């Protein structure tokens, strides 16, 4: 075999051996413990900050609203759907008196027309889907522009929550 072919093969052999060695050295230590993946990945993900809490945790302090809500149409909506992630709030809000809640612990109070419209605004695509499903699970659709629109002259109530209780619509 000519000299240069030998050298070339040598280089490739070195590369392959090096690869096999590196494979052993570099393989993440937790790889394969639980399956074909890095077991530490699970642990690392648990370290990520949490933002949401369990649905029931609000009940501890806001029982009246919970019972109110359970009787209405919104009974299947979780509090955090409207109020936003509430883990920090439910952990620390108990330390403050009524009216003294710091801003960092305040939650959304989405009471504007567009907020309710997120779910209730008439949407051709949405209706088409929902007609296929069982009627009771359907979200009623209204047209924000037509359903009791604000009357600027008469100063009538126009916000949804002026007529509907968000917790018991």
């Amino acid at each position: 075999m000519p000299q240069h072919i030998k050298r070339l093969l040598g280089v490739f052999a070195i590369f392959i051996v090096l690869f096999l060695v590196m494979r052993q050295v570099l393989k993440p230590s937790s790889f394969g413990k639980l399956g074909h993946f890095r077991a530490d990945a699970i642990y690392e993900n648990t370290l990520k900050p949490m933002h949401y809490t369990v649905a029931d945790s609000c009940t501890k302090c806001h029982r009246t609203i919970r019972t109110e809500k359970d009787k209405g149409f919104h009974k299947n909506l979780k509090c955090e759907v409207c109020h936003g992630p509430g883990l920090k709030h439910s952990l620390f809000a108990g330390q403050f008196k009524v009216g003294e809640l710091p801003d960092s612990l305040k939650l959304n109070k989405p009471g504007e027309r567009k907020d309710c419209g997120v779910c209730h605004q008439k949407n051709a695509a949405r209706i088409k889907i929902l007609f296929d499903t069982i009627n009771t699970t359907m979200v009623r659709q209204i047209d924000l522009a037509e359903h009791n629109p604000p009357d600027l002259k008469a100063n009538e109530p126009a916000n949804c929550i002026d007529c509907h209780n968000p917790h018991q619509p």
Partner: protein
Amino acid sequence: MEDHLQNLYEVLSKIEGYVYPNEIELNWSILIVLYPYITGLVAGAFILASLERIFKIKVLKPTYGIALLTAFSFMLVATMPLVSHLGKPLRAYEIMITPHSSSAMAIFGFVYLWYLMVVLFLEIWFDYRRDMVIWGNESKGVKRFLYKLLSLWTTDISPKAVALDDRIGYIVTVIGIPSAFLLHGYVGFIFGSIKANPWWSTVLMPVIFLFSAMVSGIALVMIIYIVLTKIRKQLLDMDCLDTIAKYLFYILIIDFALEGLDQIHRIYVAEESFEALHALVFGKLFYTLFIYQGLLGTIVPLLTLGTLQFYKPKPQIRKVIYIILPILVLMGIFFMRWNVVIGGQLFSKSFYGYTTFKTGLIGMEGYLMAATWLIIPFLILSFLLWLLPPWRKIETSHE
């Protein structure tokens, strides 16, 4: 409150109709457009080189070396868009050391290595070894060391050894053609096998990707050849350019036919996804699909190249055409990738809604990042052309 959790309304303003929550954000961004684009350029440039080597189309000789080095420099960068897209560059190697046979992505690591090391590297090495030995003896300093290192301090340049190099180089190229098909067919396969997405899921996808790859690679080498020759103040080999243009024309026809076939099939079958795709194509994809990809990137080049097959204007005019056409073609193929990758994510799999794609200038997934990965291959190529200038090679005829 944390911003990213509060922007529901902003998010909702991006969508039309009904989309599933996981479809609002496009997970595959501009970098994933770039990745098939760059691998396509590699495969295409290599095929052009092998036309000369295997199919013995001797007029293409001036572009052989350029095509190989182009393929090599783009290949070195091909995975980088993926790595920067995934955002964990320090863990990127793990896909290589813990592969799983059921993961197409992991197998790609090996397809890639095979193609880079066994095909491109070996072919270039055997092609240049004799010259590197000679240049190594002629030059001084760092360059001398580089040549010596690259030629592994070999000295044997007897006719017998050179003939052997040539023979092995030939075999490598023969292996290389199916490998190039594999490399790029694979990229198409990744998309074509996503059965949940009607815009991607077609068995034609690998073939379409392959032919569009060839189109783009050939166009790229054409431009590089013209620019290089101008920089070196040499005369353009018009025969060579005419021949490249001819092949570009043939392959463009196949590419166009395949893509047309795919669309006609879609229209004729008119599955339940059809209406949604129809609205997509005439809405958000109108410019990128019909104008950039279809009209400018395909029809105009096709008609011009077709005309050139019957009627040859003066070389001066042909030169201009040969500069403009490849640019159009390259742009067209870029938007073809764009339409596949981005287009496939714009519509909801419920077929009732659409989302929008927005990307910034800066950031890990921004346009600047994408531009960087398009420019770096040219820097590598300049270096390689400086180190291994194909025009300084001693004429060997590949037998």
